[in-house]
């Protein structure tokens, strides 16, 4: 809401401050975005969609996919503060697909649901995965819950599905 100082000013002022600079990456747009996405390419989008759906599966009420969680997260990454998360998503999704390939010879999105669950459980507990894998798990879990249970105006929770499900009237 309040961001009077623009990014160019910030970079300028942060120059000479190596610690601050290290945490920032310039966002490079790539051409091959997944449908409806402005950050994720198609394989990344498929991975995010599959992870989010395991986090909040569809039953008699919508799952993460139907609630638009992918687009909510894509919105975070292309938003004003996406730079805090871009690297972590790029490397986190890569790591998850590497683990999936290593264990089951397919990308995460193509795995059977019990295989997907086993990968996610390993990431959650940190078993046999690097610490950044566990940290990325926490981040995408947090973003998924925000997208599914948050205010529909922010791009997720389409049709207020989760609010209807739990009886929250706002």
């Amino acid at each position, binding site marked *: *809401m*309040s*961001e*009077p*100082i623009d*990014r160019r*000013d*910030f970079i300028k*002022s*942060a120059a*000479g*401050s*190596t*610690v*601050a600079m290290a*945490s920032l990456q310039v966002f490079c747009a790539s051409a091959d975005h997944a449908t409806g996405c402005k950050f994720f390419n198609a394989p990344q989008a498929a991975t995010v969609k599959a992870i989010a759906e*395991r*986090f*909040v*599966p569809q*039953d008699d009420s919508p799952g993460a996919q139907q609630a638009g969680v992918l687009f909510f997260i894509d919105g975070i990454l292309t938003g*004003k*503060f996406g730079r*805090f998360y871009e690297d972590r998503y790029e490397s986190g999704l890569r790591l998850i697909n590497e683990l999936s390939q290593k264990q089951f010879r397919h990308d995460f999105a193509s795995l059977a649901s019990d295989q997907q*669950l086993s990968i*996610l459980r390993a990431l*959650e507990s940190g078993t046999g995965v690097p610490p950044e894998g566990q940290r990325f798990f926490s981040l995408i*879990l*947090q973003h*998924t*819950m*925000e997208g*599914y*249970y*948050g*205010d529909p*105006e*922010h791009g997720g929770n389409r049709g207020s599905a*989760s*609010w209807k*499900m*739990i*009886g*929250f*009237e*706002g």
Partner: protein
Amino acid sequence: MPNRKVDAVVVGSGAGGGIVAKELAEAGLSVVVFERGQMYTKADFNHSELGSQYSVPPAYGPSVLSNPRTFRYTDREVARVVYPGVNDEYGKTAAAVGGGTLAYGGASWRFKREDFRMKSTYGTIAGTSVEDWPISYDDLEPFYEKAEYELGVSGLAGADAFAEPRKKPYPLPPLPINPQGEIVRDAGLRLGWHPFPPPFAILTEPYKGRSACIQCVWCLAHACEAEAKSGTQVTMLPLALKTGKCELRKNSFVTRILTDGKGRPAGVQYYDINKQGHEQLADLIIVACSATESARLLLNSSGKFHPRGLGNSSGQVGRNLNDHTGGDSYGIFERDIPHDKGPGPSIAFNDWNHSHAPGIPGGGYIYNYYCTLPIEFAQTRPPGEAMWGQAHKEFQKKYFHRYIHLGSNCQALPQEKNCVDLDPKVRDAWGMPVARITHSWCETDLKIANFVMQKGEQLLKEAGAIKTWKGVNARGGVNDHQNGTCRMGNDPKTSVVNRYCQSHDLGNLFVTDGSVLVTDAGFNPALTIQALAFWAADYIKKEWKGSAWRNGKRA
């Protein structure tokens, strides 16, 4: 054109600054209040868990990219860069007209007698810098009363069996007791505890031209569209401006306190919204921009006469940075418990605040918490319960309306090594060194929090919870009750300001925010900061004459 010199500059428009500005302006002094944030209006307010003061970006500032800090748990680590909203350890205080009181929860407690006498009550506590205050509850009582009446605080006098005596009732009746409150009240009575409706700076009836609380569920971390929350932006600042003696200079960031040829504070250097630098000269400088930023401003104002920072001959500026440990207890039930009437808190217990249980100095109050929101609930589960997947979804459906959250603010003990100093490398958007925060809680802090949370679980079990659990304390980091970086005391060698919040070193320099708290009590600090602001302003009004002190002493 240069700014005209004024009698007083107040840096910060929040709990402390807003009050001093109003008091001095009404006494006829010319005042400029500086606020780095903007003035938010109802059009900026929202009902959204993703648009609150706890979101990225924080709804009411500070602006994320311009205001980094650095954080480390201990001085053995290299501090890492943290940003508002993005990193929990940064702290959650708003940067806006009204400061932290714009989107706070409004809890308005008076501290207890023991809270001003922690060392006398509990003795020296190893590894901590616990001290007595230079003032007592009785000194502050008239100013607590003034704060309650001027701001508009609701509560029920005499209802808290452990509260200190008060001369007048609250100006407004307490918030209505909601179904969760009724359940914990009855359970508490069965345990022999002492339930009562807690005090809030939330109007329950129209008061001084503002309307009563509409009982929405979005209170905490949101600004109030009914203006029922008694933040300084709707209480003190309008009165200050009405005098015609006070100017509010918002979007203006004070970077240094200026000194004259003899090292005496003479004004401030600040940047406006267009990043143009200006000076504002004044006879009195009142610093009230939160415990982190006030200490940083004094340290950033070092110079020939003040090599360690302004008002820092003691070396204590920035030391003893403190904040409450949380203290959450949760319970799930087999019956529906509506929580659709806000703000939520309606019953509290002080049985475990200074209960003098062995090994527990201080303690904390317990109260039923603000209304539960969907994301918050999705992230709250008993140990061992799924945090995602079908089981998580089932839990969300089944227990969202079968749940009670008890909160607390448990006393944490000050430690000298917890501090704010200047980061050697990182600078903000104005080129100033940022605050480097070093903070972790000590073992006793966590013992106190666990003690209180266990009592909370006991209460929930008595209320019929089928399962209870405790919140997990983080290791450290400031939250929104930061305090202690410019402690008050009688000895200039060991404290920064005297009993009137006046710098020991420089008579025309005051600090009137959470910085001056000696210890933080098991209570939210807002009303004590506000009472201290009225107390300090009272001293200034009595003793200040023109551009000198009445007793003839040079400022």
